[in-house]
């Protein structure tokens, strides 16, 4: 399977899962799909046969509301049965709306409250460096999540301790829950902010798999400071009527909208 194929499957599962569960956050799932697909398709050292192997790369989805993307990636790469994706949000399920590690093979850390993932990832990176371990810590945050003070606490710390085994990706789709980021709390220039915090900043198209792979290759080799990949994305990417429409942060795909979403995705099948 190519990363493009995995990304397509994540999008298709995302629509199906939020349709079945009448769940939210489809636009966030579509936004982060390419990032997650590239990471799980060769960038990260993970093994579905040995989900807890010592030297695995660690992955934290700090924007836990897009957890369906991670569940889909894990199921498609063999960590658990694809059929189980249908239980997302359901009574008695282990696949909660926001990503949970409890009993789910391959999920490193539970998130859902924003601003938690980066400090935890920094702690993992710090301890790993201390013990001369070679695995990397990947963490994906949202742009709205950068409103959280704890993001910047961790940004200071990761730079100070030169955590070059820490690779943050910001899913920079320019939108958050109620409005565009610029209308909420101005983030521009996001790259300059991270540069000012001492990070190695790689600013790319977050839907271009070649750019993503090149960014992660560069990040893995980089020494002396943590890396942030600012992945410029489109919220709702891949389904025309969901793109850049704030409505789809919470709206669930049902009825004609579901049919239209599926039709658009089927036309893009790779």
């Amino acid at each position, binding site marked *: 399977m190519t990363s493009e194929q995995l990304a397509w499957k994540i999008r298709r599962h995302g629509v199906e899962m939020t349709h079945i569960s009448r769940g939210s956050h489809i636009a966030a799932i579509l936004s982060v799909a390419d990032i997650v697909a590239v990471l799980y398709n060769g960038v990260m050292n993970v093994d579905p046969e040995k989900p807890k192997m010592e030297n695995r790369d660690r992955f934290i989805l700090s924007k836990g509301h897009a957890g369906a993307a991670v569940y889909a990636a894990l199921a498609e790469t063999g960590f658990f049965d694809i059929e189980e994706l249908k239980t997302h949000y359901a009574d008695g399920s282990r696949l909660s709306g926001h990503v949970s590690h409890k009993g789910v093979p391959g999920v490193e850390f*539970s*998130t859902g409250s924003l601003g938690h993932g*980066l400090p935890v990832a*920094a*702690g*993992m990176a*710090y301890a790993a460096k201390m013990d001369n371990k070679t695995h990397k810590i990947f963490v994906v945050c949202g742009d709205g999540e950068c409103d959280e003070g*704890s993001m910047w*606490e961790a940004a200071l710390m990761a730079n100070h301790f030169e955590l070059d085994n820490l690779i943050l990706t910001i899913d920079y789709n320019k939108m958050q829950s109620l409005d565009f980021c610029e209308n909420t709390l101005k983030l521009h220039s996001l790259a300059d902010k991270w540069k000012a915090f001492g990070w190695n900043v790689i600013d790319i198209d977050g839907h271009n798999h070649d750019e993503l792979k090149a960014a992660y290759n560069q990040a893995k080799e980089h020494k002396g400071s943590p890396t942030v990949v600012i992945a410029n994305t489109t919220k709702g990417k891949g389904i025309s009527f969901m793109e850049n429409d704030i409505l789809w942060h919470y709206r669930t795909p049902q009825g004609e909208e579901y049919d239209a979403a599926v039709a658009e995705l089927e036309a893009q099948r790779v």
Partner: protein
Amino acid sequence: MRDTFVKTLFEIAKKDKNVHIVTGDLGFGVLRPFFENLPEQITNVGIAEQNMTGVAAGMAREGKIVYTYSIGNFPTLRCIEQIRNDCAYHDANVKVVCVGGGFVYGSLGMSHHATEDIAMMRALPDVTVMAPGDLVEAECATKAIYEQQGTCYLRLGRGGEKRIHDTTPDFKIGKAIKIKDGEKVAIFSTGGIFDEAQDACEILEKKGINPALYTFPTVKPIDRETIVECANNFDYIVTVEEHNVIGGFSGAVAEVLSEFRHNAIQIKIGLNDTYSCIVGSQKYLRDYYGLSAEKIASKVEEYLK
């Protein structure tokens, strides 16, 4: 108590390289043994408690036993969600250490009064809550939480506490320690206010009242057995804590007392659901809010009239 903790942990850390302290830029002088002799086992992560606690959880997930260290409410209330989500839910081997439980930093103002921390920490599933009453208990609790897998809270005083136990008691997480037998009244105390509870006992004894005295170095899990036994054998159970009377130690005892039939009345000694805006030393504030030995004794006497 603070120095006892550092001394005890230092000895543990010398033998276990996975033990690590992360401090939120506090512990000047106190943490010197670590900074000077075990610099690779202590990190100052700056004035950023949310990050400190998240980092601790991440380090614990990588195999470390991490002690977050700060004063007053900073290691608890300031980052309670990181303790809940990142530490407790992940069964992370993080030990949250607070120096200055209660009115230790009395004169510094209400921001520095840790008077709701036990309630908040106790409300979190999978968190062990300890509040040692003297230096011996502090040493035992420090060793006990090192052995205990998972997230723990250690609420310490600062310095100058007495050594009340003569010998190291048979210390176990979740077990109260009987200091003395008595009749009619059983006094339960948790944390550094133990010396006031003990002095209150002596005052009452001089007036012909002979209370039993117990110290509860563990608030969670609470020692059910001792509470049930005392409720069946005493008329009054007096809970003493340097903390709000809501949700903390007295709440934990009341929860047990409400579950079975008995004839004991609970007398709650604590801060009566208020913040202190009065300036004063720990001793002064304890007395002002009715937590001094004299005030504890008078309250018990009132009930016995």
